[in-house]
Structure formats: structure tokens, C-alpha cells
């Protein structure tokens, strides 16, 4: 089942240039005796992909992992698993010799794919939570030292973690459509996707990675870069540095979702905004997300000038990078944030007493000039409409009142 790459640019053709995984056999010497029925049914292309993926992961081969993660996985998803789930970790485990850490990463992708469905099954939500806990514990227990993951994947892990937390809070708040059993279950499951645990994991990752001292030290580790030294500094390793850094931005987002804008801006203090190569520029989605939430926090604290500055610069930046991101998932996301920031920018202009429109001529004029005039003349319903469209999906951190079965939010 070789991929029909007629144009020659089909990246499923990766196998022709892939280094052989093992000298013996197409499956890296893994015997097929203990294969389940389900495993035999998994398409051969997917099986090869998994074996190869795990091998590259073990080698810490960043370049290959990046292309497997960004390109091949989504192509295989689209080809074989559109609207269905990938095979469970139990099924494919023999292919990767029950590699514990690799399977946690595989499950991260597995559950992320399941959450593309707006209403994932409860089991999926629970499994995803459990998996994130295990995965983060690997980082926190120093089990990720010999591995490396591309920054885009590390960003997506944190981003998706928070997205699934949002989804859980919204799911939990919709009590009217739930059965008695479901409500009983929720009552007993306060530890699942618990807001405190979510916050604690993010804080723990920031602390573990030692990224704050790294940032304050001019983007250099404070301690030693040698793992065998006593004062070995984890921020010397890119994989820890990135997960810690992205967790800071994760905290910014969570505090915004919980309507604590002051704390949201406070957690950003260590960030390397003045550096010539800030880490947030390494992943476009991270860059856009950072400034979207930052600008929104400024707006909610009535720091209109700061919000305008942040939104304008980011919108101009997006205008420059859009052409490099026509691949589906990131492009849609960046486009959506672009539109939202335009809406927020017009709200800022309407609320700010100063004539700051000189800051970004042409940005607003095309799309929102009309709306800006209406806002300035006091059209409250337009404010509401734009605000509802452009603001993040707020969540309530408290447990819903299970005794009053109605939808809160």
C-alpha cells in the first residue's frame, strides 16, 4: 500500500528516503505472533509510520520527528481516520515494543484527534486527562532528559491541554441534558480536569524547567549544561526550556479565561520581549496566541494604548507571515485570531480617549472603518456583538451546583 504520490510532493513518500529502522524485517524485528486481530487490520502504512516514528523519537532526531508530526500524521489522519479514532495505544503497543514514553506521546495525538469532534465521549475526556497527568509527570520526574521534541509539538501539547480543559468546563456546566448517573459521576470526579491541578501542572513545568532564571540570565542557563554535574540546569535542554516557556503563556491564557487579567499580565514579566530572538517567535501559533491574550488583558484593564500597540504590531506581523502557513490547521487558527484582533482593536479605538488611529492606518480602514463609526456613536449592541465574537471562551472555575440541574455559565 505505497502512497500514490503522483505529484512527487506527497510526503507519504517519506518511506523511500527513510533510513532503515532495523536490519531484520520490515517491522524492526518485532515478531507478529502476539498481534491482535485489530492490529492486523491497521493499514500497513500506518503501522510503518508508527514504527518509524518511534525509532526517530528514540534517536531524538528532531528534523524527522518534526516532519512526521506536522505532515505525515495529519495526512494519515485524513486518509484513514477521518471521523473515526486512531487505533488505541493497547492495539498498537506491540509495534513499538510497549515503549512507555512513546505511547504517552502517541496517546496525546490520539486524544487530540478525538477532541477534534466537538462532543467527545466522556471516556475520551477522562483518558485524555489521565494521559496528560502521566505525560507531565515524565517531564517533572526528569524522564525526558535524553529526548527532544520539536517546539511546535511542545506548544501544541500545552495549547491542547488548555483547550481540553475549557471543553471539560463547558461540558460539566451543561447539567440540563445529563442523566442522574452522569451527574453522580461528576460529583465524585472533582479531581478530573480540576482547575487547581491544571494550574499546578503549569506552574510545576515552569519551575522544573528553570526557564525564568534562564530568561533573566540573558537566555543562558544559570547552572551547568552537563547532566552529570551537581548543579546541572535543566534549562540547558531545549525540550525543558520550551515546555516551561510555553507553560508561562499557558498561565496567561488560563488567567484570562478565569477573568483575572491582573495576574495574567503578572506571569508574563519574565518573558524575553526585548531579546533579538524571543522564544515565542519560534512557533507562529504561540506568537499570535501570546499577543492575543496579552492585548485582551490590557483591554479589560482599560489600558487601551497598550492594547492598541500589541494588536497593531501583531496584526502587521500576521500579514507578513500568512503566506508561509497555508497548511490547514495553523492557518485557520491564525486567521481567526486575526479577525478577532481587528474587532478588539476597533473596540479599543472607540473606547480610548486619544486619537491613536494614526498608529495603524489601513489596518482598520478596510474592514472595520464602518463598524468603528457606529461604535463611536454609541451603538451598544455592536459592542456586545464584537465583544462576544472576539473574546476568549471564559470559564467558571468553581464546581457547578449539581443539585440544580440547569445549564450554568
Amino acid at each position, binding site marked *: 500500500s505505497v502512497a500514490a504520490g503522483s505529484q512527487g510532493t506527497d510526503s507519504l513518500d517519506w518511506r523511500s528516503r527513510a533510513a532503515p529502522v532495523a536490519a531484520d524485517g520490515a517491522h524492526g524485528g518485532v515478531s507478529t505472533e502476539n498481534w491482535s486481530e485489530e492490529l492486523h487490520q491497521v493499514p500497513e502504512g500506518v503501522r510503518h509510520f508508527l514504527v518509524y516514528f518511534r525509532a526517530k523519537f528514540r534517536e531524538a532526531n528532531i528534523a524527522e520527528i518534526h516532519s512526521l508530526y506536522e505532515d505525515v500524521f495529519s495526512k494519515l489522519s485524513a486518509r484513514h481516520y477521518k471521523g473515526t479514532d486512531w487505533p488505541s495505544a493497547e492495539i498498537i503497543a506491540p509495534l513499538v515494543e510497549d515503549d512507555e514514553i512513546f505511547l504517552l506521546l502517541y496517546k496525546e495525538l490520539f486524544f487530540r484527534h478525538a477532541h477534534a469532534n466537538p462532543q467527545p465521549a466522556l471516556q475520551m475526556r477522562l483518558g485524555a486527562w489521565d494521559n496528560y497527568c502521566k505525560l507531565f509527570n515524565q517531564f517533572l520526574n526528569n524522564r525526558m532528559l535524553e529526548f527532544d521534541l520539536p517546539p511546535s509539538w511542545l506548544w501544541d501539547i500545552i495549547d491542547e491541554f488548555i483547550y481540553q480543559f475549557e471543553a471539560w468546563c463547558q461540558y460539566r456546566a451543561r447539567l440540563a441534558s445529563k442523566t442522574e448517573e452522569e451527574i453522580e459521576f461528576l460529583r465524585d470526579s472533582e479531581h478530573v480536569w480540576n482547575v*487547581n491541578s491544571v494550574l499546578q501542572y503549569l506552574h510545576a513545568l515552569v519551575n522544573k524547567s528553570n526557564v525564568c532564571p534562564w530568561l533573566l540570565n540573558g537566555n543562558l542557563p544559570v547552572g551547568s549544561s552537563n547532566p552529570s554535574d551537581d548543579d546541572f540546569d535543566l534549562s540547558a535542554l531545549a525540550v525543558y526550556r520550551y515546555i516551561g516557556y510555553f507553560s508561562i503563556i499557558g498561565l496567561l491564557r488560563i488567567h484570562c479565561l*478565569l*477573568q*483575572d487579567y*491582573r495576574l495574567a499580565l503578572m506571569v508574563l514579566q519574565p518573558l524575553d520581549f526585548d531579546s533579538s530572538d524571543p522564544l515565542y517567535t519560534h512557533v507562529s501559533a504561540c506568537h499570535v496566541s501570546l499577543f492575543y491574550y496579552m492585548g485582551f488583558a490590557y483591554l479589560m484593564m482599560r489600558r487601551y494604548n497598550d492594547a492598541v500597540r500589541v494588536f497593531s504590531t501583531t496584526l502587521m506581523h500576521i500579514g507578513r507571515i500568512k503566506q508561509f502557513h497555508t497548511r490547514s490547521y495553523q492557518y485557520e487558527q491564525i486567521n481567526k485570531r486575526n479577525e478577532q484582533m481587528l474587532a478588539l482593536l476597533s473596540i479599543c479605538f472607540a473606547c480610548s480617549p486619544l486619537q491613536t488611529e494614526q498608529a495603524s492606518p489601513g489596518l482598520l480602514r478596510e474592514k472595520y472603518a464602518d463598524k468603528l463609526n457606529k461604535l463611536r456613536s454609541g451603538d451598544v449592541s455592536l459592542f456586545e456583538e464584537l465583544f462576544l465574537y472576539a473574546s476568549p471562551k471564559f470559564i467558571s472555575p468553581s464546581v457547578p451546583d449539581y443539585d440544580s440541574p440547569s445549564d450554568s455559565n
Partner: protein
Amino acid sequence: MSGVEGFELEQEVTGLLQTRRYDPEILPRLEAYVAQQVALNKYDSDANMAVMKLYQFYPERYHQRTVVHILAKSLMALPATDFLCAMYMIALPRQTEHPLPLLSELVRLLETGMFHEFWARAAEVKTLRSEVTGFDGEVRNFMISVIARTFSRIELTDLAKMLNLEGGANAAKDFVCGPEESSYGWRIDPESSSCVLIPPTEFNSAAGTSAPTNRERLSFRSIVASRSLFNST
């Protein structure tokens, strides 16, 4: 509470916020700290926002008296947006519980410069105002800062009404021109003893007509000083 005990509580709270910010069990200590701020006219916005956050996470621990005190202290911190930030973390149903709507209204009146109306409505929370040490003083401080940006001179009787000072023009005179440390050092207008002059700043002075010309004139000294214009980076 003695001075030493007060300082110890402050230290304790700082430590708690660093290590156990999201732990509801620290609430009793934080609530005591809020009471201390109220009694001693001190202010710690970070600790107060941490209390609001814990009430948001654990609504069963919501303690209205503490919330009202925090909101009153936040009002006293105007023009900082602390009041707004605190309100964001209060659930909508709770925001309608007395006296929260009144406090929101008082903030609105202060922010829109409706000072006479402010004092009229503030009569409804006389007890709170006397409970929270320094409340009226901080409000007057805020009002003065607004007046100083808007007026270059003002009638003393008007000033007295805006600041709700008993004793009319004389009280106002003592308040802004008096020799005490707490006064603002303003001067009586030499041309009209019923008015007081406010020190001119960029906010309360008319824009100079020579402004455009000033910009055109660049002194040689300022060009030499910004030598970076001639260096390539």
C-alpha cells in the same frame, strides 16, 4: 494589633501567596490581613485580589463582609483599576447583593467626575466609610488629582462642595493651602481672594500657540546629543 504583629502578618501573607496561593485554607489569614488593612489604612492589592480569586474558585467560602472591605479599599485606590478587576471575579448573581450595586455606582460617579452626586449617594454607606480608616481622605485625594488636571483656578466655595468639606470656603482653604503636610500647597489668587490657583501642568494649561514653531527649531546641542542618528547599527 501592635505594630510588630501587623508586620508579622504582612510577612506571613507574602509567604503564603508565594507557596499556597490557590489553597483555600489560607483564607482565614488573608481575611485577617484585609481587616488589618482596613484598620490601619494600608493597602495590598495583590493579597486582596488573591482573596477574590479564592472566593471565585470556592464560592462556599465567599464572605461578603471581606468582599465589601476589599471593594472599598479598591475604590480608595482610584484611578487604579483594582475595583474593576475585583468585580470581574465576582459571580453575576452576587453582584446584585447590597451594597455592591451602590459601590459600583459610587465608582462610576467618581470616574465620571460627578462629585456632588457622589457625596449624596455616599451618605448611604456612612457606617462603611467610618469603618474603613481613611476612606474619605483617599476619596478627596483622588478628587483633588482630577480637579488639578481640569482647573487652573477654582472658587473655594465650589471646591468645598466638591470635597464635601464642612465649613465651606474656609475649610477648603485650609485643606489645599494650609501649612500642614497634608495640604497641597496651592495659593490664594492674588486677584480674587475667593479663588485659589492650581499649579499649572501640561493638563490644566492652554496649549501654547508657539508649539509648532518650537518643534521646527532643533538646537545643535540636541542633534549632537543624539549621535546615534549618524551611526549605523
